[in-house]
């Protein structure tokens, strides 16, 4: 692999993460449909996770699984495991938030029969 392409693809990871953040916040604010807001929120949260994982990468490194036998060798040979561990937690937080958000949405829909914020506001009054 030529170095140029790796640099390009590497920097693109950050830029795509930022682009996804922008997309997510746009949907979160602009969409009037609450389900779409949830989808926007999911994209926003995954973009943050993408950013964290990107800080863990090292070219020419392998998975952070150290062979049982022998010494571990230099750290540069393995991906940085800390962001991985953190992002596992962040994914759990994501699905937990999704569960509660959907519970609220399902109850709102049962009572007022809509996912549209405007309809709900009308019917709530």
């Amino acid at each position, binding site marked *: 692999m030529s170095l140029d392409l790796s640099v390009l693809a590497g920097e693109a990871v950050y830029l795509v993460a930022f682009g996804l953040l922008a997309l997510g916040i746009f949907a979160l604010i*602009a969409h009037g449909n609450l389900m779409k807001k949830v989808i926007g929120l999911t994209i926003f949260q995954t973009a943050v996770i993408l950013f964290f994982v990107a800080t863990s990468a090292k070219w020419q490194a392998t998975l952070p699984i150290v062979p049982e036998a022998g010494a571990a060798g230099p750290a540069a040979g393995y991906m940085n495991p800390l962001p991985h561990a953190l992002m596992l937690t962040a994914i759990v937080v994501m699905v937990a938030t999704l569960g509660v958000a959907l519970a609220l949405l399902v109850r709102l*829909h049962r009572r007022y029969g809509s996912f549209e914020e*405007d309809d709900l506001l009308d019917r709530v009054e």
Partner: protein
Amino acid sequence: MSAVLLALCLAIALLLAVAALAAGNLLSAVIVLGAYSLVLSLLWAAMGAVDVAFTEATVGAGISTVLLLVALLHTSARRVAPVPVARWLGVAAAALLAAVLFWAAPDLPRFGDPASAPNRHVSPRYLEAGLAETGAPNIVTGVLGDYRGYDTLIETVVIFTAALGCWMLLSRRPG
């Protein structure tokens, strides 16, 4: 890490995110979101974050999609207006956030640089001494379960709180 695979996954992920948000039908939006999660998990596997990829595949592409589908299952209102209501406010917020982040981007450490601060500080100990100190060859398990076990305890509390919350919210009481 393969640069080609990275670039490919990034492009597809971005496309799928746009598609999920632009879809005029909630059912297709949810399905596309599941595909987006799957591509992300591929991306993270390509970056060597296998544990994150595994979790994203089971949770993001799996459970989350199922939960979203169940919530949609019995509703008839699946069509959504393609044109969002508060478009200009959304554009302004997105543009501001993107502008600020792009402005700061040049000061980020180079992607994949083994000498960047996160790769030089704190984490080397996990890799070099983790197996000897925690007995776990999978260093991510060592960090998750031992070095930062407190986070993981609270993570378990997070999912329990969510279950308890759903239990409270979706009980048989009227409302």
